[in-house]
């Protein structure tokens, strides 16, 4: 009995993972490669043949490429600031962490309140005398403004998650390393680059993987701000599943997102590899 106990405790979670993780992923792979019960790549050719595919793909990639580096820098700044604080630390941390609890849909609506035609951006511009009439920001004539609004909303919403991981990681770095560097005359910047950042690699790894995955899954923010004007991969998946009722192509889209996620996770793991012996 004692020997079986750990396995019994793991059983519910393992069974659940099997039924609701491995089995459905098997299904989605099969679904993307079959059509009407036959093995085919038609789902993929239909997907790539559709005029929205390449813009959805590149919009997603560009969003990730712009948003994630900005967030990494902001999260590092926020974490360093919090580290230096002596009073009011927990209050500031709570404020910085607030967006962590806010759903992507709500974040989209929050930024809609700013960017819509009678919204706060127009009101502020009007009060400053920049515009006399409210301007339409989120129309299809100016996709780049929608793109910018989505970027801002994403940066606003999801920096917190990286910040929290980085703050926790910084807490694990022994103070002695930094003190030693200080004794040898390293400036604050040198200490940050040569001591803190390298020791932070495991946390950076986690933060980047989580964040890049979330960026590939961007959906509700885009729908809230631009409807279907700005196509992204997850939005197209939803469209094919729901509006066009074509599960095969939706599954093909899912495979693209999955492939991107796994590929980029591996890249991050490789770039920020920490040898076993060098961990703290």
């Amino acid at each position: 009995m004692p020997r079986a106990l750990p396995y019994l405790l793991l059983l519910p979670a393992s069974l659940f993972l099997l039924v609701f993780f491995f089995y459905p992923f098997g299904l989605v792979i099969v679904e993307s490669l079959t059509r009407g019960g036959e093995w085919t790549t038609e789902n993929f050719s239909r997907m790539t043949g559709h005029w929205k595919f390449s813009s959805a793909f590149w919009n997603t990639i560009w969003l990730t490429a712009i948003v994630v580096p900005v967030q990494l820098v902001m999260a590092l700044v926020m974490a360093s600031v919090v580290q230096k604080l002596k009073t009011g630390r927990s209050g500031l941390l709570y404020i910085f962490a607030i967006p962590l609890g806010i759903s992507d849909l709500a974040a989209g609506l929050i930024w809609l309140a700013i960017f819509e035609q009678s919204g706060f951006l127009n009101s502020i511009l009007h009060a400053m005398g920049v515009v006399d009439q409210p301007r339409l920001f989120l129309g299809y004539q100016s996709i780049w403004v929608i793109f910018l609004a989505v970027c801002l909303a994403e940066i606003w919403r999801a920096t917190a998650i990286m910040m929290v991981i980085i703050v926790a990681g910084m807490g694990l770095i022994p103070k002695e390393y930094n003190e030693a560097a200080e004794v040898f005359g390293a400036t604050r910047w040198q200490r940050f680059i040569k001591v803190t950042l390298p020791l932070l690699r495991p946390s950076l790894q986690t933060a980047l993987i989580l964040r890049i995955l979330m960026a590939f899954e961007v959906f509700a923010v885009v729908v809230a701000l631009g409807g279907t004007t700005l196509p992204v991969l997850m939005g197209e998946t939803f469209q094919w599943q729901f509006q066009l009722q074509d599960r095969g192509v939706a599954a093909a889209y899912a495979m693209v997102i999955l492939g991107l996620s796994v590929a980029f996770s591996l890249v991050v793991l490789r770039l920020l590899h920490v040898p076993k012996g060098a961990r703290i």
Partner: protein
Amino acid sequence: MSDVTPPAPRPEEVGRAGRFLFWAGIGLLVLWVLVPIWFLFVNALSAPSEVTSFPKRLWPSFDMASLQFFWNFQGVTRALWNSVKVAVLTMILSIGMGAPAGYALSRFDFPGKEFFRVLVIMTRAFPLPLLALPLAVMFIRTGLDDTVLGLALVHAMLALPFAVLITYSLFSGIPVELEEAAWTLGCTRFQAFVKVVLPLALPGIAASAVFAFVISWNEVFAAAVLTIENRTLTAFLLQSLNVSPLPLKFAGGAALVLPALIFIFAVRKYLFAMWGIANR
């Protein structure tokens, strides 16, 4: 000409300027996080006619008409109630399965332990909301389609990896010696767990349960794919985005944000411990 060169600023002046910049930076970051949320609540707490008017005031009129309109809108109360039901079920399912697994990982050494741990961590490299696509078919076959339980199962899959890793670190933080002392005093393994370990771990478990609740409460994609009649609040808001008037959107957004704010505040003490350790 050497007397023309300005005198180098004294160190204390540099320090003062630096401190000013530091606090100004903190102030900017705090505004960056809080002002957008403020705008959303200004809209939610103003009358519908004010929400669509231009230019806007930066202070709400505390007119409840928008919220009333939202509350009385067809299907809103039902969606809210569904959101609560799904989130509570998610909480129970993920902790119910995750906590035993976390306990097993922290207290036993057994073959396959590392495999299970890596498996759980690995699930994070997959875009989990996509699971909703194949599961939609599976649920139609089993009669779980468009039910609260079906969606809760998918949300539990999102929350389970966190529940396992968080409870793992929680139980690891409670010394085994306490349990062993209880055994020598005649407690069975189960009694020792209930009387000694559980009271110590309960606040942390409650915090991770709240976390599971927030994950479910905020989830958009799977909810929108899997529910038609029994929509959650996020699914309801998403699917009525292109038909609903602005006041409804903003009141709905505020209804989404408020519980999340309260919950994050409730677990703020555990936020960093949970993310920091669970993510290594």
